[in-house]
């Protein structure tokens, strides 16, 4: 069991706090949604949690995973995976190369053929069997979204952040990808934090919902 915990988290821009201090715990396999208007600081909150908050912001509070305070750790040591609204597959790597990039942390000691087998099995599990050698640019939006999800999960994250990851998909793909993402995150047992302004996302997430409000 892992828990992602925010304590008295608060962001300020030019001395003005963006929202009231936030306390929050996300348990293993749980999806907590954060809703807020654009400009409410919800994406900046995620940036802070994964350690890439632009220097114009100031932040107070702590981010914890279980008992570990990770507030000041560099991004790569936090073990927090993130999915953005664009799939952001690395365009210079094959589909398999993208997955291998994420796999390195979780399974650095694997042999080459073991890694390939893992990647192939992962692709197959989301209906993309045999696409490992493909150029990501040749995949459809829904396929790319699924590869991006696999890439995050194969990196063995201790928590996953979702930054409106479905908003750019067309309505039909959106429902499928959404269901898949939530199902996989739950199955992997990672605490998952979703920011969105789409009520359907919140309903599908099925977990608690927090409205970001002005201080």
């Amino acid at each position, binding site marked *: 069991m892992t828990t992602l915990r925010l304590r008295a988290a608060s962001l300020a821009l030019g001395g003005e706090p963006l929202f009231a201090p936030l306390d929050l715990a996300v348990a293993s396999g749980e999806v907590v949604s954060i809703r807020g208007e654009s400009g409410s600081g919800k994406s900046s909150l995620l940036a802070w949690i*994964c*350690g*890439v908050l*632009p*220097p114009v912001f100031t932040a107070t509070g702590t981010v914890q995973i279980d008992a570990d305070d990770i507030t000041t750790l*560099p*991004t*790569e040591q*936090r*073990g*927090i*995976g*993130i999915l*953005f609204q*664009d799939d*952001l*597959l*690395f*365009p*210079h*790597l094959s589909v398999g190369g993208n997955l291998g*990039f*994420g796999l*390195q*942390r979780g399974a650095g000691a694997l042999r080459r053929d073991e890694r390939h087998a893992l990647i192939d099995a992962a692709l197959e599990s989301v209906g993309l069997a045999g696409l490992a050698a493909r*150029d*990501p*640019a*040749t995949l459809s939006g829904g396929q790319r979204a699924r590869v991006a999800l696999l*890439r*995050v999960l194969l*990196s063995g*994250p201790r928590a996953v952040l979702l930054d409106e990851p479905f908003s750019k998909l067309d309505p039909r793909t959106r429902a499928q990808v959404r269901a898949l993402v939530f199902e996989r995150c739950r199955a992997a047992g990672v605490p998952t934090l979703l920011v969105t302004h789409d009520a359907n996302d919140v309903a599908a997430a099925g977990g608690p919902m927090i409205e970001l409000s002005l201080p």
Partner: protein
Amino acid sequence: MTKRALLAAVLLLVLLPVAVGLGGTILPALSSEPWRELFATPGLARAITLTLFTGIASAVISLGLAHLLLAVYSARLARERLRAAMLPLLATPHLALAIGVALLLAPSGWLLRALSPWLTGFTQPPDWATIQDPWGLSLVLGLVLKETPFLVLALGSALTQVPSERLMLQARTLGYRPFKSWCVAVAPLLQRQIRLPFAAVVAFGLGNVDVAIALGPSNPPTLAILLWQWFTDPDLSRRALAAAGAVMLTGLTALALWALHALAARVRRLWLRHATSGRRHDSTVAATLFANSIGALLLATGLLALIALVLRSLARAWRFPEFLPRSIDMNSWSNALATLTPALEGSVGLALLTAFVALLVSLWAAETLRPLPQWRTRLAALLFVPLIVPQFGFLYGLQVALSALRIEGTWTAMLLTHLLFVLPYVFAFVVAAHTALDARLPIVARSLGASPTATFAKVTLPLLARTSLQALALGFAVSLALLLPSLFAGAGRFITFATEAAATMTSGSLRSAAVYGSAQALLPLLGFAAAALAGALVFRRRAGVPA
């Protein structure tokens, strides 16, 4: 803060030589003797007038033409074609192009040969001042030929920072035709971004030897040519006089930049008043016709000049009015080979080394400054300083400093000096591509567990592979073109194609000048071609990698 310390080191690398150089040039000019001598120079007033006229006219005409061309070719696809068409002119060094234009337009040049004797009746070259005319018009032409493509490129990259297509569409849906849409909605937004490149064009126009040596008037010549004669005079007592002249040229440049800046503000006011008058009619048809004709004329002149240059280097006997030489051979090339070999080593080796170092510094600075975008802009502006201070103003003083350090004429001195001029271009190019990369890609890589170094090596660098290749070709081309920096830092001991072309041009050996000019012109083209080829080969199976 080690980051800041390293950045400060980069700035020091660029600003210190300029500051030391300026000081070293001013020092010998501090006594009154050289100034008295300077003001006693016959034809000085005329030389100053010529300098100001050719420098300012060429810069203003180039800026106008660049705006006109972009207004007419404002659609993205058309703009890319325009840039591609301008590339050969852009890649050719000033000096080589100027020699080519001289060979094309001289009374005995290719153009009159094409028309003689059947049309003109000439069997001897006429006694016309088609080049090196006393008003400097051919000098203005030569400069416009080089600076227009440069400003097209600079305006084009400034365009990426404004939503030009949406603005154009907005203006057109309000009833403005394309040309006027550009003039009222887009052009005013580019003024800020184009300021530094334009200042560099003005400074180069006022202080260049490269073009004036082939196309400029000779009696009196421009101030820069006078300085060149004094600085290269074996009589060392002329150095103080030359230094005083260099200080004067620097002052004139500052004055011209200030005047143009003040003028630009007034033009802008008038322009905006005109833009907001609400009148819809414009001259799209006339503008298109004019832009197309001028564009074609520039391009044709440039290409014909290059052909004339290569042809002249191969021609054995080429009597007027024969259109083609009666026999061609490689004699001059093989004769020149004796000097070409060190020039090849010097020029090509140095250009490659400079381009490579500039690329490394630029990549590193762009990556370091990712979280500090305002510093990126500041650094780009500061790196432009060596392009805006006239070369004569600080190169002499720099040479004095280098010789005090006992490194003049060495590779170190050449590399440091060339970097001053190569770095601003390479950095601007690299930083634009670096900024255009999706900033979330490295975040994703880090969140997947990659360290900053691994992220740079495995994600950022591969995505900038094509940019890096093009940046290398750009740095290579800029370095090969440098004349005065090679001359001063090399202290006459370091031979490059530029120094040899200029030396043979002044000694009147046209065929040798054509050989060095051709080599100087063809190498950058080869460089760009190699970069394009290699760029097409890397990641050719990955459609999403940026061009």
